[in-house]
């Protein structure tokens, strides 16, 4: 990772070109994107409701129903009916429509002299108002039509369109085609398209448009907020650039992988934006903080990335793991969502480690960072955050009380959260979709449906008992509150039965098992003429029904049966219309129907499906699956962060604010009466992604700061200054950015905007309040005990983490080096060399150093004393990927000579110091392990041991091991022990004086002792200027010869 970040800094243009090319590739895939808002497609096939729903397509040619409600003053006039007729024809002409039933073509059974005829309700278009009124009255007399194609009050009409069971497109798109046909032919009629597919079509169209527009507004607002917070261009471009590219790559990948945009994936861009901004904000914030003390921007970028790549990787891995946990949901589109968010998270990671440092390396140092007040006191937000940290530490008891109080309130709120599937509930009553649905629900049986299929053997439908079971079911269903009506073959058959019995209402029923039929027989009278003779005969009900079905066939009206019964008369479908699509209503109705099925379904196979049943199943699946995946995510986050931090306690510290954020989220949902649905569950997943980012950055920084200072207050201050500010900025930008979604007309989108904003605030609250309170209240011993306990608990998992990893120990050492780092130094050094006999020699030289453009150190020295060495000079130009360039100037030789070093272990100016000693150890050359705490000169210290990482390091430095005793507060070395290549004690360094110069704790008086010989070298530095302006020209052959 370090290689990646450093290369991005050193070679930014290739990185940017590569990024543009890859982005181009993925954007190319966006042209192949498809949309599929059909949630049912995501259901697992083994689900009974889904299996039956699919099988209905095989049993019946039509499946889902669309309702086109019709109203208007001229509806029941000749012209109105003409328009209905045209509309019917237009809908029939749409290729996805299998059958259309309207007031003009609905089948009616009518008695004739010869018996009975089945015909269209309107055989000819009425030519006068009277004829139209007669038709209206006729339709109202038809029980099978009342409540379906003509309203009970006669004011409205409806066209019912069955979508083909074998669609070549989604039901939503098919509904769209019908809607277009209706729009084109509606004429002067008031048209109210409804039905679940129609709602999906219109809502996805509206939601998609609105979400797209509001997301753009959100991005713009985020730009403004980030700009205001960072007050520079990079703070806007980089975090948002990361997420925009992540979204483009992820959506482009969907195109190339032929993954359609489903309902579940509609929130994908928003999720990636909310989750992906964090790392960019943290990096820019850390860079802004660092560049105040590190004027060379490339060096500042590299050190920032050295510091942050680890938590950035950690946050990405945990977020990705959390979203991979969505695999437990069982819903395909949710699983795909998890994979895509994980992919987008890794894109954000890649961008954060390459694009961000590359652009930072190209952009000039922000002027604001060089302001004196900022360099002295930090940015205003840093001061604010420091104060917040102090407040929490000072009042941790009160803060704990507030947190617990909020948790209790959330617990109360969480119990009030209800799950909801209703699309209608998400609509404003004035929304055209809501108006249409309400029109159909008010005037007709209802938009939402359940399908109950009665299955038997071929021909069973001709058995009156079988049909009576259907009829009993329908009667029961119609009696359930919320059921608007039912639809099946039964009313048609009872009507036929009545008609064929001379309209006798007593026969408005299904035939019995045996019917006594009054008929005529033809006999020869006495004259030999054939005459009719009334007779009474016993006829089986089955035979009667066979006759009725035969009449359908004989009159060519079998199409009237196709959506009610199967061709082999084995199965029948009863459609139950519901007035409401609210989950609690559907739950109740489905429950009652299931109860009836359990009690009365013996001997006949009865199954239920339909949109209502499916939506309930989807809801249950998603709710349970999401809940499970949240739990799994939390566990995964704990395991991963425990492994990463090598501390189960710190792992728990990452999980607690996540858990709290989710808890608060549900609490607010309950308090505000927001339902739990597909979208709001997605926000809970998002909480993990966002919260884990905040928590890891905070915990990572706190751990380093605490190890460094050993003081909770100071550690929290340092943590708040950097991570705290970044978290606050992130929260404000994203939460504020998504607030415009509150203006959405679709309640779901509005709720999502609100919850995203809240979840950002809760996650930030978790990191910036709960974590500090935990840290402030956790006693070291308690922490250790908790750690041990958690280790035992996690032993099975953590045992997998083999081998010591000292990433954070190294990070501590990096902090030490950073704290002591300076960009330039000028001063006079007096070196007193004392041999074993106590004889001393003194060397005085002027020395200057600075960090060069490669981030390496240039050094020049020029001797002033003793006289015979006066004017001798040494120049070192540090090189990143090559040997340093070293030169000496000896006046006695008269010219500058290039020299080479004999490694860093060589004596410096013939003293006991080596070049390695007077410089800083190279972090990567040593394996760092934090040791115990100790005191040196009464100062609390941290012991850090570095072991040479390679034999080459041993050879170069002359040391196999170094043990530093570091002032835990100032982070300056007070003592050091050096071990030779064989591992024997070699030298000791004691620091007698540390001065704060130029903001850097500087050891100005130190003594190195050779343990074997007893010789000592004391180095005293004076006239020091640190981090001043040292010109590059000082590190030239010219200065070496002439002085500086």
């Amino acid at each position, binding site marked *: 990772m370090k290689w990646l970040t450093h290369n991005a800094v050193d070679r930014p243009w290739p990185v940017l070109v590569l990024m543009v090319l890859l982005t181009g590739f993925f954007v190319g895939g966006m042209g192949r994107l498809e949309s599929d808002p059909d949630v049912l497609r995501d259901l697992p096939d083994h689900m009974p409701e889904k299996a039956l729903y699919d099988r209905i397509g095989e049993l019946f040619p039509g499946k889902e129903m669309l309702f086109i409600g019709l109203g208007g003053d001229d509806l029941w006039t000749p012209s109105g009916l003409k328009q209905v007729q045209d509309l019917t024809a237009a809908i029939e002409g749409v290729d996805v429509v299998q059958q259309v039933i309207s007031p003009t073509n609905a089948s009616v059974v009518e008695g004739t002299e010869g018996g009975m005829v089945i015909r269209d309700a309107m055989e000819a278009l009425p030519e006068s108002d009277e004829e139209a009124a007669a038709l209206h009255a006729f339709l109202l007399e038809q029980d099978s039509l009342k409540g379906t194609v003509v309203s009970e009050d006669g004011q409205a009409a409806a066209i019912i369109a069955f979508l083909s069971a074998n669609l070549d497109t989604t039901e939503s798109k098919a509904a769209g085609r019908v809607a277009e046909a209706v729009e084109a032919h509606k004429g002067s009629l008031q048209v109210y398209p409804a039905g679940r597919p129609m709602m999906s079509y219109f809502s996805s169209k509206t939601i998609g448009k609105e979400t797209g527009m509001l997301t753009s507004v959100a991005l713009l607002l985020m730009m403004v907020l980030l700009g205001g917070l960072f007050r520079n261009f990079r703070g806007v471009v980089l975090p948002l650039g990361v997420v925009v590219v992540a979204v483009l790559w992820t959506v482009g990948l969907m195109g190339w992988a032929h993954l359609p945009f489903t309902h579940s994936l509609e929130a994908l861009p928003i999720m990636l934006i909310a989750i992906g901004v964090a790392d960019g904000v943290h990096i820019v914030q850390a860079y802004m903080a660092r560049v105040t003390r590190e004027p060379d921007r490339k060096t500042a970028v590299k050190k920032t990335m050295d510091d942050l790549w680890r938590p950035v990787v950690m946050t990405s891995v945990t977020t990705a793991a959390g979203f991979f946990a969505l695999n437990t949901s069982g819903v395909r589109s949710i699983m795909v969502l998890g994979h895509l968010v994980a992919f987008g998270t890794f894109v954000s990671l890649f961008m954060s480690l390459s694009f961000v440092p590359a652009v930072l390396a190209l952009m000039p140092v922000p002027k604001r960072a060089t302001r004196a007040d900022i360099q002295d006191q930090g940015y205003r937000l840093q001061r604010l955050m420091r104060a917040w940290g102090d407040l929490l530490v000072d009042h941790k008891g009160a803060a704990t009380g507030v947190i617990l109080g909020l948790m209790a309130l959330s617990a109360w709120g969480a119990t009030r959260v209800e799950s909801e599937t209703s699309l209608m509930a998400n609509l404003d009553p004035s929304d055209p979709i809501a108006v249409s649905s309400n029109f159909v629900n008010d005037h007709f049986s209802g938009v939402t449906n359940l399908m109950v299929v009665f299955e038997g053997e071929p021909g069973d439908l001709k058995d009156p008992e079988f049909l009576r079971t259907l009829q009993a079911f329908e009667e029961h269903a119609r009696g359930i509150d919320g059921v608007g009506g039912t639809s099946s073959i039964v009313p048609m058959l009872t009507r036929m039965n009545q008609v064929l019995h001379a309209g006798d209402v007593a026969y408005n029923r299904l035939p019995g098992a045996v019917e006594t039929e009054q008929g005529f027989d033809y006999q020869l009278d006495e004259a030999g003429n054939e005459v009719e003779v009334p007779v009474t005969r016993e006829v089986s009900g089955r035979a009667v029904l066979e006759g009725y079905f035969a009449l359908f066939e004989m009159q060519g009206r079998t199409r009237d049966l196709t959506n009610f019964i199967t061709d082999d008369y084995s199965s029948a479908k009863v459609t139950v219309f519901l007035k409401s699509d609210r989950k609690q209503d559907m739950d109740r109705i489905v429950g009652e129907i299931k109860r009836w099925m359990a009690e009365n379904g013996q001997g006949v196979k009865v199954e239920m499906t339909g949109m209502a049943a499916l939506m309930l199943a989807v809801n249950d699946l998603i709710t349970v699956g999401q809940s499970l995946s949240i739990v799994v995510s939390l566990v995964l986050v704990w395991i991963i962060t425990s492994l990463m931090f090598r501390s189960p306690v710190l792992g728990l510290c990452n999980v607690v604010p996540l858990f709290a954020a989710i808890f608060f989220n549900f609490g607010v949902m309950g308090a505000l009466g927001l339902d739990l649905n597909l979208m709001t569950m997605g926000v809970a997943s998002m909480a993990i992604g966002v919260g884990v980012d905040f928590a890891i950055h905070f915990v990572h920084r706190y751990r380093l700061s605490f190890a460094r200072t050993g003081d909770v207050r100071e550690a929290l201050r340092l943590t708040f200054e950097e991570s705290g500010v970044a978290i606050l900025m992130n929260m404000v930008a994203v939460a504020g950015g998504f607030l415009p979604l509150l203006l959405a007309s679709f309640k779901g989108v509005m709720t999502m905007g609100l919850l995203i904003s809240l979840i950002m605030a809760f996650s930030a609250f978790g990191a910036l309040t709960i974590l500090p309170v935990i840290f402030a209240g956790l006693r070291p011993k308690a922490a250790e005990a908790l750690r041990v306990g958690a280790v035992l608990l996690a032993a099975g998992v953590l045992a997998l983490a083999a081998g010591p990893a000292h990433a954070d120990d190294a990070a501590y050492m990096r902090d030490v080096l950073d704290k002591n780092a300076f960009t330039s130094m000028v001063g006079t050094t007096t070196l007193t060399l004392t041999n074993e006999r106590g004889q001393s020699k003194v060397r005085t030289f002027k020395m200057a150093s600075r960090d060069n453009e490669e981030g390496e150190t240039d050094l020049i020295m020029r001797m002033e004393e003793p*006289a*015979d060495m006066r004017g001798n000079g040494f120049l070192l130009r540090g090189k990143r990927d090559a040997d340093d*360039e070293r030169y000496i100037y000896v006046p*006695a030789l008269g010219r500058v000579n290039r*020299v*080479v070093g*004999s490694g860093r272990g060589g004596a410096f100016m013939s003293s006991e110091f080596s070049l390695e000693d007077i410089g800083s150890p190279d972090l990567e050359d040593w394996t760092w392990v934090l040791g115990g705490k100790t005191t040196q000169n009464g100062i609390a210290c941290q012991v850090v041991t570095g072991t040479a990482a390679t034999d080459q390091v041993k050879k170069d430095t002359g040391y196999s091991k170094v043990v530093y005793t570091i002032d835990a507060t100032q982070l300056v070395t007070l003592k050091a022990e050096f071990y030779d290549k064989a591992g024997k004690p070699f030298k000791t360094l004691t620091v007698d004086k540390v001065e704060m110069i130029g903001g850097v704790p500087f050891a100005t008086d130190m003594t190195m002792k050779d343990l074997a010989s007893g010789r000592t070298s004391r180095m005293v530095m004076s006239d020091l200027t640190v981090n001043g302006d040292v010109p590059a*020209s000082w590190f030239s*052959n010219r200065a070496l010869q*002439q002085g500086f």
Partner: protein
Amino acid sequence: MLLPLGLLAAHAEGLAPQGYLKGTAGVPVFAEPSPDLGARLQLDLSDKSEHASWRVAADLSADLTGLGDPNEAVDLRAVEVKAALHHPVFDLSLGKQYVFWGSTDWVNPTDVFTPWDYLHMSSELEDYRLAPWAARWTGWRGNGALDVVWVPFPEPDIVVPGPVQLPERTLRNGSFGARATTTVAGFDLAAMAYRGMDKRPDITAVMDTQTMPPTVELQIRHGRVTVVGGDIVRGVGPVLFKGEAAGFLTPDKAGDDPDVRNRDLLAVAGVTYVPTQALNFTVQGTWGRVFDYVPDTSLMVPPQVVDPSPSSVDSFGLVERAAYSWRDLVSLSLVGVQGLEERDSFEMILLTWKARDGLEVLGGAILFSGPEGSRFGGLHEDSQAFVEAKASF
């Protein structure tokens, strides 16, 4: 009298005089023993401001061997007398000053202004290099520089035996050189060009027929030459690679003038290995090629002087150096320069004991060997062993 007055004036101006006082004793190694005793006081005054600097360094040397005529026994010689202007991008220096070019050790083909004088090799720079009066402009850019030197009048740059016949002291006979240096990918690169006096003088035997019997007089004169060359240095770990080469274009284009040096090329390449900070080794090879070589057997060349016409087309040589330092107290340096064709050599051993800061005692020997007429063979008798005690202030 002048010396104390100068010191008083310096103190009055707030300047701290620097320099050294040393006593020397030397004995010939191969010639008849004749102890050579001497003493030297060097005074070095300098001052520097942001835009200007000056330096005056002079040696007051006394030959204590015979203590004869004090006018001959005491010698006052300017080491460097120069004033300089400093601009952020250039220096302009006027006066008597050293100009060191080249990067290899002990043999520097491009060091055309102040070359090595092996005969007077000592621990002091002013003994083996002579600073000319020159105007020098050096432009700086990053790690690179352009050095332009103009020596307006011909003057000797090494101490040679016998009379030196210099060209007429006119500006027309001055020398001009330029050297550009830069560092690219860790390589220190330099390219130079020079037009002026040849630093290796031609020695011509001139027969004076006016005397009876006729006598032969050796005339040493510096011809004009154009030199084009360059050098390169690269450090890799503990090893330093060095190379330097120069082509000398003399007026003897045909190569048939026995009195004029032939056109030739001299190249040096080698490595310095620094296994520890206290120890280093240098090994270099030299290669010389004479162009347009026409042997002239009729030339009468006294055995003591250098023949301007080499005896072969190609010549090879070696340079070695080993240096060791013990705890900044004692250091030992061994140097050898050998010509492989003529089998001549220059060897030097130098042992320094730093008794205390500012006080050192050194002893050593400079040895020349080789056949008569060879570069170092002719100096055989000048081989010397010596000791010095030096106090710096």
